[in-house]
């Protein structure tokens, strides 16, 4: 897409706000609609948009595939690890109230924050990984035929 000047300029302007909005949706999910899943998708969309306009090689420099694959697993580990941590504190699996026994509500806030972060990391990485897998194969349809 080297010849689409408008698309390139607008993409450069949009990527930052999209990432920022994803972080807002991620960490404001307790108070407004949204959460890890939606935030992960929006976060991935910023990279996918960048990849579509500037090419797969450029976006792979920013967000290398090995990191994407490790982050996909890391998110699940964060989520499951939160449950293991509550087990080690002597409570049931994924019972966040155990984190701060004096104020169960605070523990719930922390638990939800960490767990949503795990969901967001996994979803963002998985979406980018699937996009990489599809885009890395040579297309059968050429640019002019669309």
């Amino acid at each position, binding site marked *: 897409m080297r010849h689409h000047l408008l698309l390139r300029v607008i993409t450069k302007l949009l990527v930052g706000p999209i990432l920022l909005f994803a972080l807002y*949706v991620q960490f404001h999910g307790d108070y407004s609609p949204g959460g890890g899943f939606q935030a992960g*998708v929006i976060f991935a*969309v910023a990279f996918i948009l960048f990849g579509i306009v500037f090419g797969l090689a450029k976006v792979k420099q920013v967000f290398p595939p090995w990191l994407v694959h490790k982050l996909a697993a890391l998110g699940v580990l964060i989520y499951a690890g939160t449950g293991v941590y509550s087990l080690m504190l002597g409570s049931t699996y994924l019972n966040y109230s155990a984190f701060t026994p004096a104020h169960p509500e605070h523990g719930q*806030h922390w638990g939800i924050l960490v767990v949503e972060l795990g969901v967001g990391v996994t979803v963002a990485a998985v979406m980018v990984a699937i*996009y990489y*897998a599809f885009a890395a194969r040579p297309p*059968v*349809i050429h640019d002019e035929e669309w």
Partner: protein
Amino acid sequence: MELFIILTLFFMLVVTAIAILMMRHLFAVVMLSGVFSLLSALLFVTLDAVDVAFTEAAVGAGISTVLMLGTMALTSRNEKMPRDFSPIPLLVVIATGSVLIYGTLDMPIFGSPTSPALSHLATAYLTQSPHDIGVPNVVTAILASYRGYDTLGETVVVFTACVGVLILIGGLARRRRKDEEGTN
């Protein structure tokens, strides 16, 4: 007024679905399926299910449209014409559809306050979550805390999907490159 909006959205949904059925050009079909997701997201907003609408707009209209376009670029632009008309699929669809409609007859009326989902669990969540969890968005409280196991399962499913795609598509490309290096 709200009824008018809902009816208009449903009408547009049906029109989009019929247009998707009629078209052979897959690029237009993919775009229309994005429109379909966006219309369903609007319907979810009219039901006050903002979180679901958010997900539908981001995943249905956003990511899956991009992935469908990616798949299309790897396969074909036009839908293949069916070889000849066979009545069996039509009969299967009509039979399944009538069974499903028959099944809805037992369901409580839409929005009925006495429906089982609204009378026990929903009220319990709404009344208890402010002092159990204290998070203003009850949907987040249910998803991440009350139903933490289910959300963990969903995350693992998403991860499994990634592993499946990488094994199917990502691994094959790498093996081919090795073969080429070997022959060269």
